[in-house]
């Protein structure tokens, strides 16, 4: 009786075994990639907003400061979405007939909110708090990216748990002087652009800004300049970089240390800002309750 399967089917059988394995692996990899893909995370997607608001125009073009609109970012968990009133402060005077602004004028006239679509949307069981991040040296751009270069707002990062944890397990890599929080172009210290930080000694019970002073201009070059650092034009696109502290609270004779890389600055700030340990920061109750 002839064989139903000839010898070549052995190879086919082996191949199909291998193929099955490969398909299973491929399926796993696909699913794994899928749940990290922009389709799920919405990373980089521009939502269809009622008004095509351009952060680029308002921040880079006009020089509005973040807190002009996001007023509660330093004092509350929510950064705050501006009320229609904030828009109308200017747009009652300029572009009063622009078609794009029709929803804003309608909101102002009817008292109905402008129905924005949330771009940075965390699941409801995750509790993120802006206030503590901003006060402890995490800048806007660390999470939101170069908002000043975004004509339409999109999500720069995935906002997935692995992304949160990557920083909570090693917060030093993203810390910056609190005076640079709103500096969209901040890139950390380097050999070309070192950062000098000085402290008035570690004190408990006072806000960080009153004990630590950082500057991007060499303080040894001109001691008196420290006092007027606030005014110094620096950074990108003519934005000013504020010093950490009101000049009068920091003695001029601080011991400034020069930092040329993020790691050493991160370590210094972790200590100065009393950043909790990675163990504490990555404990579940930090974000889930």
């Amino acid at each position: 009786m002839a064989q139903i399967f000839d010898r070549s089917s052995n190879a086919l059988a082996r191949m199909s075994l291998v193929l099955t394995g490969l398909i299973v692996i491929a399926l796993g990899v696909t699913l794994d990639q899928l749940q990290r893909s922009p389709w799920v995370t919405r990373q980089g997607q521009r939502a269809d907003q009622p008004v095509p608001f351009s952060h680029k125009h308002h921040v880079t073009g006009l020089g509005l400061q973040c807190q002009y609109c996001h007023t509660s970012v330093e004092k509350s968990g929510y950064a705050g979405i501006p009320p229609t009133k904030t828009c109308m402060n200017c747009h009652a005077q300029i572009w009063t007939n622009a078609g794009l602004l029709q929803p804003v004028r309608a909101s102002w006239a009817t008292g109905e909110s402008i129905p924005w679509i949330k771009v940075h949307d965390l699941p409801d069981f995750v509790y993120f708090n802006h206030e503590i991040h901003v006060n402890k040296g995490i800048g806007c751009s660390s999470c939101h990216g170069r908002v000043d270069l975004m004509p339409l707002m999109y999500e720069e990062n995935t906002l997935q748990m692995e992304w949160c944890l990557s920083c909570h397990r090693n917060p030093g890599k993203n810390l910056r002087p609190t005076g640079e929080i709103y500096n969209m172009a901040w890139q950390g210290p380097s050999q070309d652009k070192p950062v000098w930080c000085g402290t008035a000694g570690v004190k408990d019970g006072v806000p960080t800004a009153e004990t630590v002073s950082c500057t991007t201009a060499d303080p040894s070059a001109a001691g008196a300049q420290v006092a007027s650092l606030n005014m110094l034009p620096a950074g990108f696109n003519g934005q000013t970089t504020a010093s950490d502290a009101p000049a009068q609270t920091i003695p001029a004779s601080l011991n400034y240390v020069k930092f040329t890389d993020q790691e050493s600055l991160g370590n210094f700030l972790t200590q100065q800002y009393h950043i909790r340990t990675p163990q504490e920061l990555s404990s579940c109750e930090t974000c889930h309750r």
Partner: protein
Amino acid sequence: MKENAEGAEKVDSRRDDSVDLHSQRLDNNSDMTNETSNGRNNPVAIQPAAAKALTLEQARAKLTGKTGKKYWRSVDELADTPAFREMVEREFPNQASEWLDPVSRRGFLKVMGASLALAGLSGCTKQPDEPIYPYVKQPEDLVLGRPVYFATAFPFPTGAVPLLVKSDAYRPIKVDGNPEHPYNHGTTDAITQATLLDLYDPDRSQRILHRGEVQEWAAFLAAFRAMASDKKASGGTGLYILSGTVTSPTLAAQWKRAQQTYPNAKWIQWDPVNRDSAYAASKAAFGDYYDAQYRLEGADVIVSLDADFLSGIAHPGFLKLAADFAGRRKLTSSQEMNRLYAVESTPTTTGYKADHRLALKASEIAAFAAALAAAVGAPAAGANSTWGTAPQQKFLTALAADLKANAGKCVVIPGEQQPVAVHLAALAINEALGNAGKTVVYTETVNPMPSIQGDDLRALVSDMQAGKVDWLVILDANPVYTAPVDLHFEDALGRVKTVAHLGSHLDETALLAEWHINSAHYLELWSDARAYDGTVSVVQPMIDPLYDGKSAHEIIQSLVDLPNLSGYEVVRNNWSGSLGGGDTEQAWRKVLHDGFVSGSAFQPKTVSPKVNGLPVAPAPGEAGTLEVIFRPDPHVYDGRFANVGWLQEVPKPVTSMSWDNAALMSFKTLSRLGLAEQDVITIELNGNKVLAPAFAIPGHPDDALTVYLGYGRRNGGRVAGGLGFNAYAIRTSSATLFASGAKVTKTGKTYEFAVTKSHYQDHRSPSAGGDGSGNHSLEGNEAFTRGIIRYATLDEFKKEPNFAHEVADVPEDPEPTTTMFSNWRYDKNAWGMAIDMNSCVGCNACVVSCYAENNIAVVGKHNTQTGRIMQWIRVDTYFEGDLDAPRAHFQPMTCQHCENAPCEQVCPVGATVHSPEGLNVMIYNRCVGTRYCSNNCPYKVRRFNFLLFSDYETESLKLMRNPDVTVRSRGVMEKCSYCMQRIVAAKIATDKENREIRDGEVVTACQQACPTGAIVFGNINDKESRVAKLKAQQRNYGVLADLNTRPRTTYIAGVINPNPELDAARREHASANS
């Protein structure tokens, strides 16, 4: 399979004789939504451990042979019936983990839909777009995400509760006591906590109705003012106003002004639970109405004559009394511990807390009081020196001796639900012992218009019957439901030309009124009220009226010269003159900010009562005649909170019963009447009948039934509908407190309760520390053998301060090194809790506070019966000793946050883990619902969402939620988190300031609500913290700590202070039994 079949059979047989107590029950629509309608009585209820055949003799037999401290949780356990054994074989009582609900086609589709969604890719799908609706004009001082706190007060007939309300984006989300107020210092009670849900109750009346048609407020005002101008000529003849007890000085002032124009108009106050006895006694003794304020901080001996001053605000002055009582029992001050004697009818937490308790029928208390008065030398004509049985006489003699020895340092408190004679006796005793001015002072009344409400209501009804009433304005009262049955209020209402009703719900009265005006909740309106000490609080709105409700001020103002003033203007104008000189605006703002007018507390009057002989107390009925005692329900009060799911669901103190009332009686009476628990009986009293299920409670006097008011609502709302029976149906105007001569007949039907006292079972093998038989409740079995309850008398404590650690048969707590797991290190904070068993009075304030803070779902009666109740903290009651005269211990039980947590080690998905600060945290989004953790928890404090209990749909309930706590969905385990959201908020606030969290900066919700300060929370690494100091006491012990769980919550062992003379008798009794 066999078990299932049996279970199914049981369902069927139960269904046959299950009975509906309501002949007039409304038709249900079957679409249930959680907090609104789950409460409906479900006819197919699974039976928790019926102990049908238990007789008193059997129970006694169980108790004999047990020496000394033997604890039990329920009689089922004592009886050890097969049904009970069957129940405890399971992890959860009954069939909590199985689907036994009647499945409708619609419900089936709903569940299957949900399952399919779960089975699908719900974990992998993307979230839907979420909109953001920013303000158009944001209020200037609003920081979204930061709560704001406003001071106000909750007006209640017995005096206002001063409050500080947490408001998130101007939505009130938590109601707590005002910490700066001199009366309550930040404490609250269960009812006040639950008024939050009352505000967001979706069943609230939302419109003004005229003969059932929606009408405008202006139309009502037009009609009302037309009547008012017509009546001017006659001085208001025919205009009657019927309200609940008035607590607002402004309302009283408005009425005073209106009376100038309408001298013949009448204002009647009626609350079914009122202070008539106290006022009548005061009128008789002083010639005027006064309130008695008891100063327990100076009292060494306290006697309660049926005064339940430790279980809730139904007793006037509760918050201060409870705090002062507990203050003298913490053993921290140099002052000696106080001693409480309770002579009471219905068992209450006050009686169970007492060092000595004597159970008497309500009608016998007057005789006891008169005898006591005679014994201490007060004028007491009605006293019968040969009163009582020998043990009762012994009690009386010892008590009288103790009182005389502590003259001027003792106090006798009469019960609000006792007749005038008892109040007069208390006045006479306090006067004779020189307590007046020391432990009791007399002040003007909190009620600005004190009256004898029962008499007034009777007069009103006779005027109504006579056709003299043209307009009856009913303000926040529900007389059709609450009026004594013999007055036939409903019929009389038909003879009134126009009835206008202001009320929060479309209740029994609203449906019969021509006009119904939806009232504003107290969190929505301007008013004022006095706390029981007299301090005035301004009630300010926390939120714009959700349904444009109106207040009594706005209606009564129509009778005054400036009819269009708003509630705000009325209140403001009333106080503008009396806030002291200087800047009125400044003073007013200070009052609103502080929440009270400082220095407005009543000054004691220099009056002394003249009690010229007590009225002869009625001879107690012959043995065998049944007495019915009417009591306000500990939670729903007179029925006004019947639609509040939190209050319905939280098991009531003493009975551990939720969702129902019952005919409560002693075990002896139960067997004498040939009844078993759950039998439905007909109570016939003076020709009126009501169907009620029987329920026995330890310590109830024999030959008496207690019925709680407030149930059997016809039109109470979706939650209240179909629950319990209406005790008002047998309450007549001549006997509103208690009545004798009741006849009880058995109907042969049964009714199922939701009683939680035996819900938490233990069935570990002997090798694991259990007794292996599995037929005990966890607590009852182990309370004794494992030292869950530890207490000593004051003398024993003085001799052996370390008594809490020298419990026979209980192994010492193992050393921290005896574990195969490495120990945790806590460098900074280590959160812990200490609960003082001496201070806890079992009032349930903590439980309701926890519901509000942690978004806990209400599951309904049926699910409570099957053991699915979701509360994170419960108050366990342990009975000890004799069935008729038990002692009870209250133990708040919640997640112990073990350092060696058994739950953490068995979770397969890491959903419950240990935090660096020692919290045992629950990660909902990781939980897959294996329930291993609950299985492995020795304290049975974990709660599983067997069904979708959280209401995600009802709009008004969304406003109520705490935004800082996840609303849990189906299939997720949850438990106490030590109010982690508050810890994290404190950490963020202090991290910003680069400092450590100070002691007292984190307060848990249960701690905040506790009226006696029994719960203390804090950082145990900080040796100066209050909690660390408490834990350093020798009385500190951990429950089941010998399992090496190392609980972070520990208990401070109780110390009681019995009278040595009576205590000896107790011991003899105990040894005779053994």
